């Protein structure tokens, strides 16, 4: 077997250090010149429960997880509570080996820790190995680690073994360890790394062909997650205040910001609940500081009422929503895209907000910046919608992507000088909510500015902010506020926030939003290679919707398949609602089992859809177009 890409999966229990080991592994390969992409899977538990991370690496850009994987490092769940076959959740101890075999590709490589895993416990192991032509390298990683350091260093032993089998230069791991480990544990780790590496080379006759591919980068790369880039985008826009309450997976952005803000003289507040969190961000913003808050589904639900107040009072704020599978507590650590309608419409009254859904780690940085530009430029709340997948996946991005000027501009605000000539009402209230504002954007004054005082209220109000129920005032103010979205639409049109994939002309379209973009891109490429005529679009602007661009896209194809991670086809519904037609052209490919799409699932779903057949995989669902 001669794969030109590596899909390495490290599996163990929660608490076994899978995340940090895989992060270093990905970084090592990035430094070695490869493009990398990680996909993580973990249960909602602190200790125990089967968890894995996949690192996909190849010489060309990688934008998605692969189909299955080709190298397994199974460590054994050292926190398994009840290692018995008839236990309620099954024998957790052997899961890192047992549960990963179904997705291991033919000809794949297996390294497992005989210190905890016994292949006799895995039904039909020998037979499956033979049938699938797997290459198995059992090693007592635990013992090696214990003999040369401490048992917890077995991950290092596993990496050493992998490196030997795949031909990865140990130098990259050594450097990474030296950068992150204190002297005391560095030495034994290095020793274990080399010892296992050499042991594997001596002890085993290699029967596999899989080797790490060679590659090189023409410019410096950095390895980041979507959570990193959302936070960095905020910081580069001069966001210096965050308020939040922990909830997976939003906690990552909150954590990154909370660690960075004190270093740049900003403020982070962990508060009593998400209602408070959103309200604090608004209070700080009102007082003149660029601010954000965020949460995941349940916490975001609590923010509904403050969000409506932000719309009505035109208090700029950026809220991020990190989706996880719902309803309710759902699958707390698994991705889904089922909060789209929630963030579009939650809170009473007509929605008057911007919702952006970045598709990749790099886009998340740009759109996080755009979110602040729009919020402060238009005095409107902006929601950055992403999910557990995008938030947690690591990807290499050129470092130069982040080499941009900071933008602390507070947007549509007055200066004290401007306030001197600005219209005021009787009693001296500044006309904060002017009827005749350009593009509907009436600049705000900041408390403390001389001549700037006015009233903010969630009630309908007149130019000075006073409660006013006069019908003409009502219509004028409603229309002014709603018209801001027209300006936002124009602003976004200049920024090319939608991502087009594949050829310009094609018979079929694949449409997706948010984090599935990279996977759809890979599917588009494969379909074209297989002789289909397909182009794709990854949509980021949820509100205001890119009506012209999507109309053109849909007019140019015969049929289109909408790929999204939810059960009710929310983005397809939005598309039909916004465009008012195309119901007969749009079909859906849905997935809501807690795992993101694999490219092959989209390929298969597409092929089934054009042939009018059922989708072969029971983990995805096909919903035909109206009238079919």
């Amino acid at each position, binding site marked *: 077997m001669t794969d030109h890409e590596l899909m390495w999966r490290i599996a163990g229990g929660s608490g076994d250090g899978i995340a940090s080991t895989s992060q270093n592994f990905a970084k090592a390969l990035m430094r070695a010149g490869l493009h990398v992409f990680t996909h993580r899977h973990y249960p909602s538990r602190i200790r125990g429960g089967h968890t894995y991370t996949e690192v996909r690496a190849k010489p060309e850009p990688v934008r998605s997880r692969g189909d299955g994987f080709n190298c397994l490092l199974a460590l054994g769940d050292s926190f398994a509570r009840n290692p018995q076959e008839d236990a309620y959740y099954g024998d957790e101890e052997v899961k890192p080996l047992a549960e990963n075999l179904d997705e291991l590709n033919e000809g794949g490589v297996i390294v497992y820790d005989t210190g905890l895993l016994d292949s006799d416990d895995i039904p039909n192991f020998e037979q499956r190995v033979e049938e699938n032509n797997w290459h198995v390298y059992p090693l007592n990683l635990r013992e090696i680690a214990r003999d040369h350091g401490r048992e917890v260093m077995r991950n290092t032993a596993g990496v050493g073994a992998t490196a030997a089998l795949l031909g990865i230069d140990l130098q990259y791991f050594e450097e990474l360890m030296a950068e992150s480990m204190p002297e005391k544990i560095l030495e034994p780790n290095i020793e274990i790394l080399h010892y296992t590496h050499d042991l594997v080379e001596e002890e085993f006759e290699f029967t596999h062909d899989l080797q790490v591919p060679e590659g090189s980068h023409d410019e410096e*790369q*950095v*390895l980041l997650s979507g959570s*990193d880039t959302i936070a*960095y985008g905020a*910081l*580069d826009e001069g966001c*210096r*205040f965050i*308020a939040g309450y922990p909830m997976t997976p939003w906690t990552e952005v909150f954590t990154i910001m909370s660690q*960075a803000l*004190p*270093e*740049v*003289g*900003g*403020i*982070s507040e962990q508060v*009593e609940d998400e*209602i*408070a969190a959103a*309200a*604090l961000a*608004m*209070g*700080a913003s*009102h*007082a*003149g*500081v660029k601010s954000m808050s965020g949460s995941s589904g349940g916490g975001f639900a609590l923010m509904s*009422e*403050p969000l*409506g*107040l932000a719309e009505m*009072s035109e208090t700029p704020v950026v809220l991020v929503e990190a989706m996880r599978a719902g309803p309710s507590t759902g699958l707390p650590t698994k991705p889904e895209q089922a909060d789209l309608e929630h963030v579009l419409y939650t809170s009473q009254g007509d929605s008057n907000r911007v919702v952006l859904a970045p598709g990749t780690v790099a886009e998340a940085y740009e759109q996080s910046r755009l979110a602040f530009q729009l919020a402060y430029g238009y005095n409107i709340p902006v929601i950055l919608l992403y999910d557990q997948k995008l938030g947690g996946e690591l990807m290499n991005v050129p*470092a130069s992507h*982040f080499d*941009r000027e*900071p933008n*602390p501009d507070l947007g549509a605000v007055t200066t*004290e000088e401007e306030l001197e000539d600005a219209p005021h009402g*009787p*009693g*001296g*209230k500044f006309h904060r909510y002017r009827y005749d504002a350009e593009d509907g954007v009436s600049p705000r004054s*900041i*408390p*403390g*500015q*001389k*001549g*700037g*005082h006015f*009233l*903010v*209220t*969630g009630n309908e109000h007149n130019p000075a*902010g*006073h*409660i006013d129920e006069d019908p003409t005032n009502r219509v004028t103010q409603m229309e002014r506020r709603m018209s801001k979205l027209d300006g936002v639409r124009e602003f976004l049109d200049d920024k090319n926030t939608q991502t087009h994939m594949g050829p310009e002309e094609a018979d079929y379209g694949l449409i997706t939003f948010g984090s599935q973009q990279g996977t759809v891109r890979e599917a588009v490429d494969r379909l074209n290679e297989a002789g289909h005529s397909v182009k794709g679009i990854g949509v980021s602007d949820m509100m205001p919707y890119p009506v012209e661009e999507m109309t053109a896209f849909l007019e140019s194809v015969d049929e289109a398949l909408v790929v999204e991670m939810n059960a009710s086809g929310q983005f397809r519904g939005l598309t039909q609602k916004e465009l008012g037609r195309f119901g007969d052209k749009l079909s859906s490919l849905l997935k809501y089992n807690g795992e993101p799409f694999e490219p092959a699932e989209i390929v298969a779903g597409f092929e089934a859809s054009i042939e009018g057949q059922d989708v072969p995989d029971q983990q995805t669902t096909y919903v035909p177009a109206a009238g079919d």
Partner: protein
Amino acid sequence: MSAFSAIGEEREIDREEFTPTLEPQATWCPGCGDFGVLKALKQAMPEIGRNPDEVLLVTGIGCSGKLNSYFESYGYHSIHGRSLPISRAAKLANPELEVIAAGGDGDGYGIGGNHFMHTARENHDMTYIVFNNEIFGLTKGQTSPTSPKGHKSKTQPHGSAKDPVRPLSLALTSGASYIARTAAVNPNQAKEILVEAMQHDGFAHVDFLTQCPTWNKDARQYVPYTDINEADEYEHDPTDRDAAAAMASEAEQALYEGEVLTGRFYVDSDRPSYSEEKQAIGEMPEEPLAERYFDDDYEWERTHDLLLDRHK
């Protein structure tokens, strides 16, 4: 140079500056205690030397929430129960502002109760006025968290089976560093207490008894009242925490027995404010953050320089 020249402006301040010249005229019912809060607040302002452009008055929803409609200053009439998280963040963003939050007993002790507890715990340097009329005024007379046990209303036809919230004790256990109760019928004390509360460097909670003649007809007008710091029978020392706990408890009970005990229950001038605490651990800048956005010379940090190395 500050971008906020209203702050700290040295000039005589007239209480009429806080009165809207024409409209809106207060829409409260005749005899409503809310007028007393408005008046006391306007009187207190010149004494603390603050002008309308450096005051941020954040209110909740209720008859009480209309306070900033009739008071000239920066105002934020927010949503039910949420005046505290909005106002305390504004104070963090610009500590030089005079920040006041206000709302009803339902607003502050019911729907916003969680924020009350946490804002007090954190000891933000701000004043919180609760218009305590022991009723939901704006929604037409339902039983509120401070209504007495047995209180009958349209939504509690058989009388409330609940003991009322004890606002002063709650403030004390939560960590408020200034706790007082006053009454609309007691304008001089009310003004003095508001002055002290605003001058206090920490979270000042004022439980302001405001009669609601419309929905709480059988309730007292909160007269006669006794000043616990002055009356011979109490001579309460508000710096004594244990005494404050006992006094708060007694006053809460007494109110339901027809006796109105007002004054300063607790004053702790030594406890650092939240901003001071945060600054001490390096989590808040010394200069008001809000100024930075108007400072053309400020060198804004870039993540490219600051944070990217760890990803290489």
